[in-house]
């Protein structure tokens, strides 16, 4: 037995093909999977939300909002009462009980929480110039309740987060899903916001008889925050200018009058 040294020309233990191409294939497969997962989660949540009884939601909301430092404001209560009188008798909002209050935060925002609680941030209240503007914002939040957005949003984010974590594993999902949740959710959420805007507008017109103050607030915000269009591709709310345009077009199409606004009274004594 003799040894014959011979060199190996080809490495059979390493597969051919570009690793980058591999990465492209795997990534696109994963993105497709995530999109599918998101759609499925959304469909599941949307159809499930209809079966949640309001009593259970109120209980859930009670737990969530119990330790919120919510201070009452007679001006907000007044607006809410005025809008509540305009619900159509056949809609879900008609039989519900709503609560409204202020939280001391600088953010210019208002949120609809499960259980019928509307929270207005004090930062927003400072920006508001008339009662009609505030009524538009409260109407917008009531729109979220009418479309059950407050539940679907919570459910979608929760379910998608859990499902993607199960499929992708902790390591990848922590970095990637946050981005995908935001991006995928953004377009859905923008549609919700626009629908709530339109609901709020029609409620405003019904309660006050005209559409005055519907766009004033958004115009002021748009001037204040001149953020680029690019950032709004993944933002949860539509670009303020788009909101203004849609609202103005609707007002024009319906032929609603725009009259003078009612001034918001100064901060009431505590």
């Amino acid at each position, binding site marked *: 037995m003799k040894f014959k040294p011979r060199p190996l020309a080809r490495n059979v233990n390493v*597969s051919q*093909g570009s690793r980058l191409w591999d990465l492209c294939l795997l990534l696109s*497969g994963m993105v497709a999977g995530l999109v599918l997962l998101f759609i499925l989660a959304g469909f599941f949540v949307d159809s499930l939300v209809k079966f949640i009884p309001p009593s259970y939601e109120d209980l859930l909301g009670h737990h969530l909002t119990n330790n919120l430092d919510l201070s009452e404001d007679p001006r907000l209560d007044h607006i809410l009462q005025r809008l509540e009188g305009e619900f159509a008798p056949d809609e879900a909002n008609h039989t519900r009980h709503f609560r409204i209050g202020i939280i001391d935060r600088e953010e210019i925002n208002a949120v609809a929480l499960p259980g019928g609680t509307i929270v207005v941030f004090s930062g927003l209240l400072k920006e508001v110039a008339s009662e009609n503007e505030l009524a538009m914002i409260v109407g917008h939040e009531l729109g979220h309740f009418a479309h059950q957005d407050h539940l679907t949003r919570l459910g979608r984010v929760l379910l998608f987060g859990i499902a993607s974590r199960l499929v992708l594993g902790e390591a*990848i999902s922590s970095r990637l899903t946050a981005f995908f949740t935001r991006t995928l959710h953004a377009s859905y959420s923008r549609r919700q916001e626009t629908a709530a805007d339109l609901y709020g507008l029609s409620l405003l017109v019904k309660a006050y008889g005209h559409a005055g103050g519907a766009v004033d607030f958004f115009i002021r915000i748009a001037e204040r925050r001149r953020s680029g269009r690019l*950032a709004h591709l993944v933002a949860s709310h539509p670009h303020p200018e788009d909101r203004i345009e849609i609202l103005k077009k609707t007002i024009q199409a319906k032929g609603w009058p725009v009259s003078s606004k009612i001034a918001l009274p100064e901060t009431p004594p505590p």
Partner: protein
Amino acid sequence: MIELIMQNVGLLTLLFLVTLGYTVGTLVEKRHYRSLMKREQALLTLPAVTIKHDQSVDEIRGSMMVSGSAVISIDYFKRFLARLRNIFGGRVKSYETLVDRSRREAILRMKASAPGAAIIVNMRLETAAIGNSANQKRMIGSVETLAYGTAIWLRTSPTSEAPLKI
């Protein structure tokens, strides 16, 4: 724009690490393969075999167990690719070069520790996992290979003047 960057810090970090892992990792790997090929060519005349060699006793000047080992680390790109591959299943190409490199390096080191030997017999290879924690965050992922065998020096070998370390 800055807002957009701030929102996606996690994703951008990932992108940066994957790019870094790919460029530097590929460079390091290419260089390692070049060096492997050069040294393998130089040590081509020293065979390492898995069989027990039957040289007649009087020809043998001496024998000794020799070993060589190497630990090769994965890079971020490979790790990311392997994690994705874990979802879909199939051939984990990114780790193939890793085990290949560590094995060849270990064999070369074993051969290099037996200068002047005619043959290394009954060679065995041992591979330690790329750390079961390789897929987890902040864990070191690497593969260790140990090659060991018995080197045999012959009296009639042309390089019999070479040192025999016994």
